[in-house]
């Protein structure tokens, strides 16, 4: 008897319907899986074999053919175990139809018949719902992430036996209660809080501006100045993710298998800091198993690149597309996958290879040639996409040991939220959400400055030795500063402040 069970596969971060067909024939006993299964899927036959036996069913010594249709797309992962096992039970007439064919099944089986956690359950459920399917059965361990999708009955079980009992009516089960995404946001606490950052007024202020305008930011300073800590504070002062953003980010994390099962949903903006030795595929995603990479995991959050000049040129070049388009397209010979990756780039670097350049207390041992070489690694197109550069000096002992708390992330976030609201209103229907995304036309429209401010800017260029590339960046940042100030126009004080955040363009850096 032919069995045809519904299941789902993953293409990028979206699920697509896969039907698992099982047929039993006479012949040499064995199981053959076709439909381009990868290694994990192929090994399914050993797991299914034992799981069926150890769950109290029998496996007749016949030839079993499993087809994963459509047969021309690659099937990856171990989540086809459950549909295959159920198909075999049906084909060998150990269970009846009992709603088997209008339910979607995903889940990995252990040899003992327990259902184990699988990746990408959330996008599969969303896809099933969009296809109008009514029921889906998932492993218990994936229960949390499934609870944020309404409009489809999701059942979670912990073993093959339970699933069968449920199907044949021996066991009552309720679908998982749907939870509201908004509710999940309540009560979460960011990992780092600005109130524990000692000193560094300018850097704190720059963080606030960066968060308010969505500007990418580069921090330059000696080791131990607190650059990493400042970067980690950023998710806490960025506006709360919307429900859509949270679901989209959760989808990516679910596919990549980095979602923590106790959370079920990503409520805090992600903070990813790949090491500079990370391979290109680790950053972009793709590769053999088409998993999202670090820059997609940072979607709607912060991508932190520590020691920016240590990253290879080709790695940094990869970042250009996502910084521009908010997505990354991974093209391989067999297929093209697209992952969303709209993130804020936060980078840090030392002022020179030894890190002591410009320090009042330590000696720099680098030659000018070494320094030039170091700085040249991040020149050009990369710098063009970073609006704010600031210097983060070392902190003095007195500041470190002071018990006084600085302004907390929550207070800063309130101002950021207000500034974002202004921007959302301004850019309604423009397709952008914050000042950092402004095009040249939008800059000239929204960043008009008066005569006096224009003079000031002109003077700044000659006096401070700013480079031409700084011009539009300063205007953008000044726009954000004005928004934070609640000011309709960009005033000269806003431009003046923005001038302080262009360290690398300044001649004293040369």
């Amino acid at each position, binding site marked *: 008897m032919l069995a045809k069970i519904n299941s789902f596969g993953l293409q990028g971060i979206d699920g697509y319907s896969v039907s698992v067909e099982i047929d039993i024939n006479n012949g040499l006993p064995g199981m053959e899986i076709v439909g381009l299964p990868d290694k994990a899927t192929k090994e399914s036959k050993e797991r299914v074999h034992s799981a069926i036996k150890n769950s109290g069913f029998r496996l007749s010594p016949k030839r079993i053919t499993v087809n994963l249709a459509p047969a021309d797309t690659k099937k990856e992962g171990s989540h086809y175990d459950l549909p295959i096992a159920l198909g075999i039970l049906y084909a060998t007439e150990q269970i009846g139809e009992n709603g088997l064919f209008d339910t979607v099944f995903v889940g990995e089986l252990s040899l003992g018949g327990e259902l184990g956690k699988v990746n990408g359950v959330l996008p599969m459920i969303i896809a099933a719902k969009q296809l109008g399917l009514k029921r889906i059965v998932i492993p218990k361990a994936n229960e949390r992430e499934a609870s944020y999708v309404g409009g489809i009955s999701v059942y979670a079980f912990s073993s093959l036996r339970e699933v069968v009992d449920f199907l044949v009516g021996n066991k009552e089960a309720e679908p998982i209660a749907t939870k509201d995404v908004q509710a999940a946001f309540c009560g979460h606490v960011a990992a780092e809080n600005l109130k524990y950052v000692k000193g560094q*007024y300018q850097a704190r202020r720059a963080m606030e501006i960066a968060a308010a305008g969505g500007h990418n930011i580069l921090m330059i300073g000696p080791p131990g100045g607190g650059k990493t800590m400042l970067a980690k504070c950023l998710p806490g002062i960025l506006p709360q993710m919307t429900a859509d953003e949270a679901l989209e980010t959760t989808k990516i994390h679910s596919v990549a298998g980095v979602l923590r099962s106790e959370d079920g949903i990503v409520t805090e903006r992600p903070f990813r800091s790949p090491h500079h030795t990370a391979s290109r595929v680790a950053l972009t995603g793709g590769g053999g198993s088409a998993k999202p990479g670090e820059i997609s995991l940072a979607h709607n959050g912060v991508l932190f690149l520590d020691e920016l000049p240590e990253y290879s040129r080709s790695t940094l070049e990869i970042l250009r597309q996502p910084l521009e388009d908010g997505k990354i397209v991974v093209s391989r010979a067999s297929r093209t996958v697209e992952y969303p990756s709209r993130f804020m780039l936060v980078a840090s670097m030392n002022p020179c290879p030894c890190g002591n350049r410009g320090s009042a207390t330590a000696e*720099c041992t680098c030659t000018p040639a070494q320094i030039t070489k170091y700085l040249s690694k991040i020149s050009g197109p990369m710098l063009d996409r970073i609006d704010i550069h600031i210097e983060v000096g070392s902190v003095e002992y007195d500041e470190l040991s002071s018990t006084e708390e600085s302004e907390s992330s929550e207070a800063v976030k309130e101002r950021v939220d207000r500034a974002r609201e202004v921007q959302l209103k301004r850019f309604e229907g423009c397709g952008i959400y914050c000042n950092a995304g402004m095009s040249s036309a939008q800059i000239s429209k929204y960043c008009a400055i008066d005569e006096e401010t224009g003079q000031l800017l002109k003077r700044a260029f000659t*006096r401070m030795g700013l480079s031409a590339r700084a011009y539009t960046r300063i205007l953008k940042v000044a726009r954000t500063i004005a928004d934070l100030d609640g000011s309709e126009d960009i005033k000269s004080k806003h431009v003046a402040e923005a001038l302080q955040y262009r360290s690398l363009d300044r001649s004293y850096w040369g």
Partner: protein
Amino acid sequence: MTDERKALFWLSDGGTSSDKLNKLLEIYGSALEVYNGFSSGKLREFLGERVYSALRATRDEGEIDRRLRTLKAQGIRVLLRSSADYPELLRQSDTPPAVLYIKGNDKLLCTRCLSVVGTRRCTDYGKRVATDWTAELATEFTIVTGHATGIDTYAAKSALAAGGKVICLLACGMDLFDPPPFMKEKAENLLLVTEYPNGTHTEKFMYAERNRLFGGLSEAVVIVEAARKSGALITADLACKQNRTVFAVPGSVFSERSAGVNELIRNGATAVTSVDDIFDDLGLEKRGEKEKTDLSSLSEEERRVYEFLSDGARRFDEIADMLGVPPAQAASLLSMMELSGIIEKKMQNYYALAQG
């Protein structure tokens, strides 16, 4: 042939070192004597086979004229010790070259000269001293320096950028030196000087030989940064022997690349910590005190910052704390003060009163 000048050129162009050339002149009395009595075997032994055969091959007035014309076409002037514009200081020095090849603005030889030299592998500190100080020194002196990377190049670059004049001493033939772009741009303020004829490739001993000219040409030598075995120390040594003042810029006692300079100081070189020290020592007026910033034109807050910074550079945090204003306001204020030229931003978030 009867022209002593041509004979001198012939001797030098053949590759006779300045040292030997001077000795020949002492023995023979004039270059013409050498030219006319050339065949002697003793001379061959004295000059060495290579130079001797080169001289023999070119010992022909037509050939000498032709070579002189080629040099002229390349813009290279042959300056003889007997010439009136041969620098007087150099004439009195040890082993003054009988023949110099010069290219560029030859009036610079009659100006007051000061050498600024140092290591090739300089640190950022050395670069700053070379850049900042030379720009100021160049207002009073023609800067004499080399063409190696490091301190020499930074000094030359900075002097030219500040509109000053530079004499660059080469350790190779004039035709083998390709001036970097920053020199080509300011060719009118530059003079290239070498004692080696065209086609002479640099060899290690030539640096040491050339280095005596730094002291020879200039009133004093400033050693910016030098490790224990740097060529700049030879320069200092030779300058000292020629009775020139050696100024040494002290460095950290832990810095390997200042070890040589610090040793110079220990051995009696004059330690200098500012351009004024050098001007003072050489009998020049100290540069007028920088115009005092007009305090009355400053706002209350600007005045407080000005006074706060008069003790030295301060960090952004300290300034904001002192003013008691939010960072945004402090940043804006500091930008304005920078634009007015009252203060300067330094690295690592330091701010200081503007220098001159």
